Every structure is written in C-alpha cells, then in structure tokens.
C-alpha cells in the first residue's frame, strides 16, 4: 500500500503540469460535445484524435483521452434528457426519467442531477482504479508464459463471445484482428507474412489505422445516412431550477457507483448495462417504484452515476492484464501502444509515473467535467444543433489528415478508408469490432508467449497445461464458451414461463 501511495505522490506533479491540465480541459470539453452528439461516442472521439496525440508527451495525450472518455459519458445524457435520444449507448437509461422530467419543464434540474451524478460516479470509479489496479498488477507479475498465453486466450474469448448475440460473429471479428496482427515480418523467424509484396506492410499494420478505420469512419457514414435534424425549439431548457434535496441522492449514488464499478470490471458489459441495472435497482428499493419512468430524479441520478462509475473501472483489467472489457478501453489500449506503452502488469513497473498519472487524470477529469459542464451547459446543449450533414464530411477530413500526418503516407489513408468500409459493414451485420481491436493487441502477445512456453519446455505442449493458474484460466475459457448455451436456455425458459402461467 505504501508503494502505491509513493507512486501516486510522485505522479501528482507530472499530472499537474500546465500542458497536461490544458489538454485535460480540452479533452473533457471535446468529450462532452462528442457525447452530446447522437451517433458519436467516446470511442469515435478518441479514435479520431489519436493521430493528433503522436507529437504529445504520453501523459498529456493520456490526460486528453481521460477527459474525452469521462466527458463523453456525461455528454450522452444531454440529448437523452432533451430529445429522448441517448447521445451514447450508455445514456439509454437516462432517457427513462430524464426525458419525462424535461417534458414536465424540469430539464435544467435533470441536467444538473445528471452532471453531479456523472462527476461523482467518474470520481469514485477513478479511485477504485487507483486502489484496485496496482495490487492486481502485482499479482499478475508472477505469471509465466503459459499463464500469459491463456490470459490472452481468455480475454479474446470472453470479449468475442459475450459482446455479440451470435458468438460466431464475435469470434470471426477476433480472427480478423488476429490475422491483421500477424501481418508483417515475423520478429522471431524473419519470415514475411501476408505482406502481398507491399513494403508498407513489412512492419505490420499500424493499430492507429485500424482504430480510426473501425471507429471513426462508420459513425461518419451513419451520421450522413440518418441525417438527424434538431431544431432550436427542441432544446428549451428554461432558466428556473427547482429546489432539490441533494442529500437524498447519497444512497442512490453509493449504490449506483458500486454497481457501475462491478459491471465495469466484468468484460463485455459496459455503461449501458451498468445504467440499466442501477436504474432497476433504484426502482426496486424505492418506496414508490411507480414514480420511475415518469420523471423521478433518483432514476436520472442512478443511471448517470452508474454509467460513469463504469468508465475507469473498465480500465482495471485493461491496464493490469491487457484485457479491455469494451470497445473504448480497447481503443485506449491502442492509444497506449501508440506511445510505446504495452498494457499489462509490466506497465505498473516500467512506466509507473505515466500509469499512475493516467489514473490520476481519470480522477481530475471527473472534477473538471463538473466545472466545465456547469460553465458550458448552454454551449453543450447548442452543440446538438450542429448539422449532421456537415459534421460527417468534417469527421472524414479530420480522420484522413490525422492518419496521413503519422507517416506522411497515402497508403495509410487508403488502408484506413478500406478498414472504415469493413467497419461499416461489420456494424450493419452486428459484428462487434472490439474483438478485432483486442486481437490485434493480444494476438502478438499470445503468439510470443506460446513460442516462449514451447522453447522453455523443449517443445512439450503439455507445459501449457501444467500450472494451476493456467488450469483456472482454461476453466474460465470453457465457462465463457458455454455462456451462449446458458443464454439460450434462459431465453427458452423465459418464453415458456408466460405460457405456463397462462
């Protein structure tokens, strides 16, 4: 514990540098704006801006990313409350009570409650990250090659199977990522793999192309496709604030923060699940559950607190084990790689200052989000009026120039656009893209550890099954593979129950 405190104390001056604070402020403001725009998400915001962070110091870049992540989670509440359209998937449960509050002329109160609850959830989540991640990383430092191999397999299997309704699609996405990860010169044998005679592919496919292609281009195309138009009169908030006993929300915040953190740690769930569970739980424990769905402030507080409590918590397995639980943490891992930081327990040992600085940035941006959200409330509401039909080509242009600027290469631009088309197709066919990104990160690690294990054991494949932690991980992989069967059973039983009752 003293070690953790020591690292936190030494990271504080780094994270409080003026440049880092400036980019945290910019990131938070951009994040709120992105989250407020229906169809855009934190994942897309980070993916578009990653190329711009190349020239920044790692902590400055990560501070900005922390701001975007936290800010976008709150930003999603603005259209959820005012327009009944969640800005991000995590804002879905905010609609339940937020929109009725707005219809009753209480939009300002709903926005205030959502802002305070979001900031609080993010803050608690960042504290959980700071306290839980280092011990977990310390434990996983004792892992050998076989454990790392199975850990990578577990991470890939769980996100592929749990993130999609159809495990075949999730696993196909992972295979696509593993194939992309194998492109280039094999560092051990020096053999070229799938380079198709292209010099540009010898070093492999840069993860930035994949991230921007899969996460920035599809939302831009969908913005143009849907062409959502929002009029000024739809954004009336009013100036009156109702008197409200903030203290009454404390139990809601505590409950929802815990739910958000637990959901965040579990792979493949995400902010929308956290928000719905917290909203449901709040309704269950309330003395008048019939108020919910009709404009109960506690409903807004529960949903917003939980979806923000999910943010930093998803980074616990991502930073310590290199296993992101959802798309946005996979993109953040990609951003770490861009800055030469390989996710996993060694991150806490080899780059402690930056890692602790990033975790502190998650905490600081939670506070910044409250301040910026209060000061810029009107601006963020007006962001909703930005025309989607102009915004879409702007996203394309920003992505193209961002990718070009990394290596001054048009090949990268074409590659990114190609991956963008694939990403759009994947979205339309309900194929999750997060397993592909995760596979690009974990694939090379799994392959290297597999080979190392074989080298140590003199080619004996049984070595992979010899250690107790490996056996636990194998059991977890098998359990995850059985989840679709359980799901089917539950669904069948749920279908049979009403007919039996009848």
């Amino acid at each position: 514990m003293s070690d953790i405190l020591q690292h936190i104390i030494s990271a504080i001056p780094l994270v409080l540098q003026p440049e880092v604070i400036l980019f945290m402020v910019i990131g938070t403001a951009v994040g709120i704006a992105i989250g407020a725009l229906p169809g855009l998400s934190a994942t897309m915001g980070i993916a578009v801006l990653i190329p711009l962070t190349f020239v920044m110091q790692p902590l400055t870049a990560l501070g900005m990313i922390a701001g975007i992540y936290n800010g976008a989670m709150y930003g999603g509440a603005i259209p959820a409350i005012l327009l009944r359209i969640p800005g991000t998937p995590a804002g879905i449960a905010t609609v339940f009570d937020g929109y009725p509050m707005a219809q009753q002329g209480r939009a300002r109160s709903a926005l205030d409650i959502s802002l305070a609850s979001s900031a609080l959830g993010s803050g608690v989540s960042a504290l959980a990250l700071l306290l839980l991640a280092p011990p977990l990383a310390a434990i996983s430092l004792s892992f050998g090659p076989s454990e790392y191999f199975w850990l990578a397999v577990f991470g890939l299997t769980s996100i592929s199977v749990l993130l999609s309704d159809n495990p075949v699609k999730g696993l196909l996405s992972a295979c696509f990522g593993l194939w992309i990860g194998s492109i280039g010169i094999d560092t051990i044998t020096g053999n070229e793999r799938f380079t198709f005679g292209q010099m540009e592919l010898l070093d492999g496919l840069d993860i930035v192309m994949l991230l921007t292609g899969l996460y920035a281009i599809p939302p831009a195309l969908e913005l143009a496709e849907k062409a959502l138009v929002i009029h000024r009169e739809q954004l009336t908030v009013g100036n009156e604030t109702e008197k409200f006993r903030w203290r009454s929300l404390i139990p809601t915040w505590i409950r929802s923060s815990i739910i958000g953190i637990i959901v965040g740690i579990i792979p493949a769930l995400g902010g929308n699940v956290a928000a719905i569970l917290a909203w449901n739980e709040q309704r269950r424990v309330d003395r008048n559950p019939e108020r919910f769905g009709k404009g109960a402030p506690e409903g807004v507080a529960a949903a917003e607190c939980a979806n923000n409590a999910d943010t930093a918590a998803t980074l616990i397995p991502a930073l310590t084990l290199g296993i992101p639980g959802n798309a946005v943490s996979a993109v953040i891992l990609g951003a770490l790689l861009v800055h030469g930081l390989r996710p996993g327990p060694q991150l806490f040992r080899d780059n402690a200052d930056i890692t602790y600085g990033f975790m502190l940035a998650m905490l600081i941006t939670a506070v910044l989000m409250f301040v910026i959200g209060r000061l810029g409330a009107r601006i963020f509401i007006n962001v909703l009026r930005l025309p989607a039909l102009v915004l879409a080509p702007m996203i394309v242009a920003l992505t193209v120039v961002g990718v070009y600027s990394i290596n001054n290469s048009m090949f990268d631009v074409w590659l990114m656009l190609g991956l963008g088309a694939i990403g759009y197709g994947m979205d339309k066919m309900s194929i999750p893209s997060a397993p592909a990104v995760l596979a690009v990160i974990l694939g090379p690690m799994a392959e290297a550890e597999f080979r190392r294990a074989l080298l140590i054991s003199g080619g004996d494949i049984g070595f992979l099954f010899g250690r107790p932690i490996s056996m636990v991980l194998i059991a977890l992989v098998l359990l995850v593979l059985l989840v679709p069967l359980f799901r089917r059973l539950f669904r069948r039983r749920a279908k049979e129950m009403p007919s039996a009752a009848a």
Partner: protein
Amino acid sequence: MKIVELATALVLLALAGLGLVDAVGFPRASAYLPVAVLGLTCALSFAWAAQSALAIRRERPTLRLDPAETRRLVTLAMLSLLYALGMEAIGFFTSTILFIPLAGLALGYRSWRGLAIATVGFIAVLYAVFGLLLQTPLPGERMLELIGGA
C-alpha cells in the same frame, strides 16, 4: 440483411481458404498462429453461412433499403474517395475547401451561410493544428505552386 450475410460469409470462407493455403507454406514456427487463425476462420465462416442460409429458408427475408439513406451513404463514400484522391493531386487544403461544402450540399444541407462558416472555421482549425502547432508536411497545394510558378 441475411442475404448479404450469406454472401459475406461465403466470400470470407474463400479468402480464408486462400490465406490458409498461403500460411501452410510458412516456416513451421511462423505458421502456428496464421494456420490456427485461418483454419478457425474457415470453420466460423462456414457456420455463419449455414446460420444465414437457415435463416433465409425460415423467414424468406428481403433486402429493404431506404433510397434517401442509401443515396446519402453512397454520396459520402464516393466523395470521401475523391477527397483522398484530390488530396494527393491538388493538395490538402484545396481539396478540403472543396470537399466540405460540396459534400454538405450533395448530402442535402442547404444553408450557404452555414456551409461557408463551417468550411472556413474547419480549415482555420486544421491549419492551426497541422500547419502551425504540429507543423506536419501535408500534400502540397498545386494551385499555390502554379501561382508561384507564374
């Protein structure tokens, strides 16, 4: 959509099969991962194709597309490709100055004032970030070169 899924699964199966043939020829240590991954891709693509075929047989789905949405999607996709080509041919800023208002208009946005403000503001931000702050060498502006040359 199931029809598209079936077609995609079959294309994927063929591509993964070709990749597998290529991967089998790699030296042994280099081949472990690609062979395993592409073998699995073949099996999964086959399963996906079978799922889609069964769904088509069960539901007889038809592919319904909203003409306006499809038009906007194709427009932006095509203009984005032209933009990337133009960036190389006539320079980054020139092609962006053309791309933003043209794409906005082609997609159906009709406020000239809005388009002008958005284009000028966007170009100013891009210039500030890439030209002044990051000092990134971007594809040269042919128009400026012509004026300079003359």
